[in-house]
């Protein structure tokens, strides 16, 4: 047998399942049921099982648009961007982007952000565990090291700024089926932090300056830069922001282990 036949078969199979390409059928034994019908079992399973997975992760989106419309969106997404990981809780990171540019969703301008919120809640639930450090970990630094410290935040955290009232939409659509409530989009948007807090997926709305502070830290800027950025966004209370960080279990350590910090990292993390 020539080298690489299995690789070719697997490539043909992937095209058969994702795109409906029929070349793979010629590889199969014709025996009773036609080869195309046999391939269809795997094709149906691929789309059905991943639609179910997306439906669980994007439960709010599914409530908003109904099962059939959601299945159509999911089908388009699976064909275009199949999972990159076998862990289904990690699937759907870019589903919101597909919603944002899909013509069928043009009349639902808030839907992409709802999807981002759903994915953030999913991430909050499933992200790896990292022990939080308190402010004591910062106290050991001298003033200059403190200002230059780049803080690491929990991997369960998502920061999301939306023009729409995402928390109200989420709440209204997680009541029993048939009892979902209405939401007034004109109630306005918000800036959300969504993360795992005491074992539960949680969120809170942040003031613009606090949001800018966390966003700057999440982008890898040092504490001094983040404080300056936040200060430029209206009234900012750095003490309150720091106590929020530590009190909510968001702070997990330092991004780069500069020599003078290694003792702190060893002492506080792990």
């Amino acid at each position, binding site marked *: 047998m020539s080298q690489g036949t299995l690789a070719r078969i697997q490539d043909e199979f992937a095209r058969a399942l994702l795109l409906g390409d029929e070349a793979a059928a010629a590889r199969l034994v014709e025996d009773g049921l036609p080869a195309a019908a046999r391939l269809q079992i795997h094709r149906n*399973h691929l789309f059905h099982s991943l639609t179910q997975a997306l439906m669980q992760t994007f439960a709010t989106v599914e409530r908003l648009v109904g099962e059939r419309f959601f299945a159509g969106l999911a089908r388009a997404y699976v064909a275009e961007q199949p999972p990159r990981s076998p862990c289904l809780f990690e699937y759907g990171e870019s589903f919101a982007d597909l919603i944002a540019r899909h013509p069928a969703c043009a009349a639902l301008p808030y839907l992409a952000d709802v999807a981002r919120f759903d994915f953030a809640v999913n991430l909050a639930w499933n992200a790896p565990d990292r022990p939080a450090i308190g402010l004591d970990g910062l106290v050991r630094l001298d003033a200059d090291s403190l200002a230059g410290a780049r803080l690491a935040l929990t991997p369960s955290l998502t920061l999301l700024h939306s023009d729409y009232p995402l928390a109200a939409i989420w709440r209204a659509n997680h009541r029993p089926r048939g009892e979902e409530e209405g939401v007034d989009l004109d109630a306005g948007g918000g800036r959300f932090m969504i993360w795992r807090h005491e074992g539960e997926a949680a969120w809170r709305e942040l003031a613009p300056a606090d949001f800018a502070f966390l966003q700057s830290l999440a982008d890898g800027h040092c504490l001094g830069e983040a404080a300056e950025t936040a200060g430029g966004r209206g009234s900012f209370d750095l003490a309150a922001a720091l106590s929020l960080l530590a009190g909510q279990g968001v702070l997990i350590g330092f991004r780069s282990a500069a020599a003078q910090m290694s003792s702190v990292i060893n002492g506080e993390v792990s």
Partner: protein
Amino acid sequence: MLPRAGIGLRAVHHEAVAETRPDIGWFEIHAENYLGGGSPVQTLDAVRRDYPVALHGVGLSLGSAQGLDDGHLDRIAALAERIEPFLVSEHLSWSVVDGRYLNDLLPLPYTREALDIVAANVGRLQDRLKRRILVENPSTYLRFRASEMKEWEFLRALVRRSGCGLLCDVNNIHVSARNHGFDASAYLAALPADAVGELHLAGHAVNEADGIGILIDDHGSPVGDAVWRLFDQAVALFPSAPALVEWDSNIPPLARLVAEARQADRRRAETASALRSEPAPTRARVA
């Protein structure tokens, strides 16, 4: 002591397991469901304190021509280190090509080329985990023209080549035997008995297409009579392999799974006592 049956742990049963701590032999987990953190992992740690746990991979794609994914292998190895499973298993199938995960246990052509690839991937997994793994026979709905050997011949060769063990899924044998018209009992008897380290039990669905019935391995109904009879033959052939009850669709309350595990224990005991009262059975007679 006869090995007791276990249950496949699913998210919908996490609370019921924590509350009732059912009297069963062990739990098996799908590794990919516990590679994050938070509540699922906490639940697993609690289960592990009270039960032996077997690690069953879903997404390593042992049949991938492109080889195993390093990142995923690392995550599986870390989980294995954390929970110290008494068994580790994966499937004779593939699911990844060019980094795209197709979320299915896809069939392989049974060729010498595929054997080389699977044996290399199994070897790599065993080297990484520093232990023998079990490879499970799949349910299949199609066959490749290119196949050069039977599935059981492929499995025998794989055991010889890689030193792996086998996870004998009795329902999968029944499903594939019916779908492709081979003798399920002969398949069982052809497996290398000392390599079989675990048995799987599950239900399947019957799908009618153009007047042709095809069995679908959906794990969505009680174990059928024909599969129980095949199980009786399997426990006679592989007496030390513990059995597992699996449900993945229409999942009933935990108590139904516990009852099915007990049924497996009863049938194993009956088979064992029947064998004791007979003069030394040969494998041919049992099969």
